[in-house]
């Protein structure tokens, strides 16, 4: 369970990016974090991952997110970055996928088995030994998801997982996300994707939770969405 209790954060003094925010996410939930640019979505991710520290309490399964517990917390979470180029830094997909398991002291043999199983489940076996600089944007995004799954995380955080993808690759990514059983937190402006993959939506604006509830209900509220610089998803128009 993820708990945000009265969390505040500011990059500049007096300019709160996250303002006394509280919410909780249960195990296995799939939650979409939506909001206009600068609403604070990415900062929430950073706070959860311990990449930024604010006031208040953030805990995961009862363990506080703080410098002492960082490795324990991060082992549970996988973060898919918006720009896959910034995530895939090893020469090949295989080496990138091996990176996290080896860091977490999984034996090379077991890590290889894990990598093979994940590639097979995502139907990406042909990417295994491909060079990261030679695969397409869609393949790279799928490979980035695969590298995170190789960690066997309990929680998956995704920042704009469908950005800059063509419709075909977007659909592949959406179907993959839908098939993941872990707790998922997805930030995106692609509200159709959120509607497709998340059962719950948290609407953020100016660092505050404006609405929190079933995705279908919030993403059908035209007035609410437009008030916070968003539009109804195409599927609801």
């Amino acid at each position, binding site marked *: 369970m993820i708990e945000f209790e009265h969390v505040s954060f500011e990059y500049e003094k007096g300019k709160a990016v996250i303002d006394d925010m509280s919410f909780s996410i249960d195990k296995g939930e799939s939650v979409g974090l939506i909001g206009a640019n600068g609403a604070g979505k990415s900062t929430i991710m950073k706070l959860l*991952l311990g*990449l930024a520290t604010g006031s208040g309490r953030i805990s995961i399964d009862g363990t506080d997110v703080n410098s002492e517990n960082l490795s324990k917390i991060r082992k549970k979470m996988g973060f898919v*970055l918006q720009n896959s180029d910034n995530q895939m*830094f090893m020469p090949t997909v295989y*080496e990138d996928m091996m990176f996290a398991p*080896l860091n*977490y002291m999984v034996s*090379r043999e077991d890590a290889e088995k894990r990598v093979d199983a994940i590639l097979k489940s995502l139907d990406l076996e042909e990417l295994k030994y491909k060079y990261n*600089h030679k695969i397409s944007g869609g393949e790279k995004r799928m490979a980035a998801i695969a590298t995170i799954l190789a960690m066997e995380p309990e929680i998956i955080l995704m920042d704009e997982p469908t950005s800059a993808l063509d419709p075909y690759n977007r659909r592949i990514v959406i179907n993959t996300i839908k098939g993941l059983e872990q707790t998922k937190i997805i930030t995106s402006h692609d509200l159709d994707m959120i509607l497709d993959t998340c059962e719950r939506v948290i609407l953020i604006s100016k660092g505050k939770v404006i609405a929190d509830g079933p995705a279908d209900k919030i993403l059908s509220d035209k007035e609410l969405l437009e008030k916070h610089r968003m539009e109804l998803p195409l599927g609801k128009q």
Partner: protein
Amino acid sequence: MEKALAELGHMDEMAVMDSPVHHLNAGAKLLATVIYIIVVMSFDKYSLSGLVPMLLWPVFMYQMSGIHVSTCFYKLRIVLPLVMAVGLFNPIFDREIMFTIGGVGVSGGVISMITLMLKGVLCLMASFLLVATTPFDSICAALQRVHMPKMLVTLLLLTYRYVGVMTEELAVMTDAYHLRAPGQKGIQFSAWGSFLGQVLLRSMDRAQELYSSMLLRGYHQHFHYAPIKKFGSEDAIYLALSIAFFAAVKMINFGELLGSMFMR
């Protein structure tokens, strides 16, 4: 820039080609390269005839690796002129005539200049051969095995990766510049400062994000390199033959020997 990026990628691909040299143990190749460079550098500045046979080792290894020697010169085309520039002033300062060819005196400065240039080229050829036939991770693993400080090895690996990130950012910015400066050749001098500043800031941002991505995947200042091939009998033979060749060239001046045979 796109070409530079492709070339960087090509280096990684070359390193995993299939040849007897590629299959050698990374540590053995590293050691042979280091010894080769030391031996090359140990030659006296006038010992051109002694140094020339050292060229045989990289040329032979290039042949064995299936990589054309011209690939090395092409990839190192930016560094080579700098290496060639070493000793350029020697002919001015050292004018003592050492011997004459067809009545034309050859000064010590000319000999030492050519020797220095050759030394640079040979060292570059050997270093390139190592990088082109060994994945960079394996070189780092070998360096760690010979107890080079972990921090230095990690720094080396990250620098290698960072070059790609910086080149990518440079490519994006150069394209953006040229699209708004049609017909302009290169980047105007007045824009150099801000351009370089932006490249640095952008690549630092990206490097920061990459580093975060590493931390989030359990990185703790230690890279788990893929296991390198164990040191086998073929590596021992390669190393022994290489060292024997270096020693022979160092001890016997084959150039002079050959010359004296013809002079008789």
